[in-house]
C-alpha cells in the first residue's frame, strides 16, 4: 500500500528537551539537595555549592529523560502522561535516550571533578537506581515499586551533604529515611484517585493489585515510621527547637490526614477528597520540613 501522506518527524523544540527532564520533579530534588547542602556542617565555596546543585539537577533531569524514553509506550496509555514529547510524537526516542545518557555522564563527571568523587558516586548510583532498578525492573513488575524505588528520590539531600563534608554520617541517613518513608503514602494517595489510569497502563500499583482497603491501611501504617524519622533529628540532638516543634506539628497534621484516608471507603475518584488532600499536603510537608531543618541548622544554630 502506498500512502499519499507520511508522518513527518520534525526536529524537537528545545522546550521538549526541557519537558523530558520533568522540571516539577526536579524542583523538589533541587530543593531537598539544597537543604542537605545547607544543613551540612562545614563550609563550601558558593561556586562549588552552585555546581553541586546544578549537577544534582542535571542528574535528576537525566533520570526523567531516561524514564520517559523507556516508558514512552506506557505514557501514551495514561491521560496524565500522554502529552509528553515522546508519546505525543514531538520527538524521536533515540534523541531522548542520547539526551538522557549525555546529561547523566556530564552531571556525574562534573560533580566528580569540581566537587568530590563521593557525591559523584552517589549521584551515579541514584541515576542508575532510578533509571534501571526502578523504571525497568520494579515499576512494571511489583506493587512494592515505589517502596523500594523511593530510595532514588531520597538520595539528593545525601548528595548535597556529601558535597560539603565529603562523607556520609547519621544525619544524611536520617534525611534519606524521611524521604524514603514519605514516598509510599505520597504516591499511594495519588495511586488511589488515579487507579483507572494506572490500571489502563498496566502498572501494578498497590490499589490495582491489593485493593483500596489494603492501600489505605498501608498509607496509615507508613505514616508512623515516617513521622518517627522526621522527628528523629530533634530527638538525637541534631536540630533545635524550631525544627523540633514544627516537625511535631507537621507530622501530627500528616497523621490526621492519613487517618482520614484510612477511614474513607470511597471507590470513585471524585469521592476521594481525603486522598487528594493528603497528596497535596504531602508535597508541602516535605518542602516545609526540609526548609525548616536547613533554617534551624544554618540560621538559628
Amino acid at each position, binding site marked *: *500500500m*502506498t*500512502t*499519499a501522506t*507520511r508522518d*513527518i518527524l*520534525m*526536529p*524537537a*523544540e*528545545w522546550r521538549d528537551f526541557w519537558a523530558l527532564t520533568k522540571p516539577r520533579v526536579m524542583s523538589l530534588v533541587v530543593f531537598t539537595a539544597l537543604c542537605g547542602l545547607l544543613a551540612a556542617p562545614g563550609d563550601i*565555596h558558593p*561556586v*562549588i555549592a*552552585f*555546581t553541586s546543585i*546544578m549537577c544534582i539537577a542535571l542528574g535528576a533531569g537525566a533520570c526523567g529523560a531516561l524514564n520517559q524514553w523507556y516508558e514512552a509506550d506506557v505514557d501514551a496509555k495514561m491521560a496524565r502522561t500522554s502529552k509528553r514529547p515522546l508519546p505525543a510524537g514531538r520527538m524521536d526516542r533515540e534523541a531522548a535516550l542520547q539526551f538522557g545518557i549525555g546529561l547523566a555522564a556530564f552531571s556525574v563527571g562534573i560533580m566528580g571533578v*569540581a566537587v568530590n568523587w563521593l557525591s559523584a558516586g552517589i549521584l551515579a548510583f541514584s541515576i542508575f537506581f532510578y533509571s534501571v532498578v526502578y523504571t525497568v525492573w520494579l515499576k512494571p513488575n511489583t506493587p512494592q515499586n515505589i517502596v523500594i524505588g523511593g530510595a532514588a528520590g531520597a538520595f539528593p539531600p545525601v548528595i548535597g551533604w556529601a558535597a560539603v563534608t565529603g562523607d556520609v554520617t547519621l544525619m544524611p541517613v536520617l534525611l534519606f529515611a524521611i524521604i524514603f518513608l514519605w514516598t509510599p503514602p505520597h504516591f499511594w494517595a495519588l495511586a488511589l484517585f488515579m487507579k483507572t489510569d494506572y490500571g489502563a497502563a498496566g502498572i501494578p500499583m498497590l490499589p490495582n493489585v491489593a485493593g483500596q482497603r489494603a492501600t489505605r491501611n498501608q498509607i496509615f501504617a507508613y505514616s508512623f515510621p515516617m513521622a518517627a524519622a522526621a522527628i528523629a533529628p530533634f530527638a538525637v540532638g541534631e536540630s533545635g527547637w524550631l525544627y523540633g516543634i514544627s516537625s511535631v506539628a507537621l507530622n501530627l497534621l500528616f497523621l490526621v490526614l492519613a487517618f482520614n484516608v484510612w477511614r474513607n471507603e470511597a471507590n470513585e475518584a471524585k469521592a476521594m477528597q481525603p486522598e487528594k488532600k493528603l497528596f497535596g499536603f504531602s508535597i508541602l510537608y516535605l518542602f516545609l520540613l526540609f526548609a525548616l531543618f536547613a533554617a534551624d541548622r544554618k540560621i538559628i544554630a
Partner: protein
Amino acid sequence: MTEVERPYTAEETRIVRERQAARSRVMGVVLIGLCVLFFLITVVKIGVWG
C-alpha cells in the same frame, strides 16, 4: 507498506528553521554559561579566592 518520500513543504521548512534557530540560541546560552562556570571553578580550585 511504502511511504512516499517527499521534501518538506515551504511551511514545514520554515518551522524546521525556526526550531533549529531556537535550539541553537539555547545551546549558545548554555555553552557560554558553562564556560563562565568552568572558569570560576578553576579559579576556586587553584585557590585564588582562598
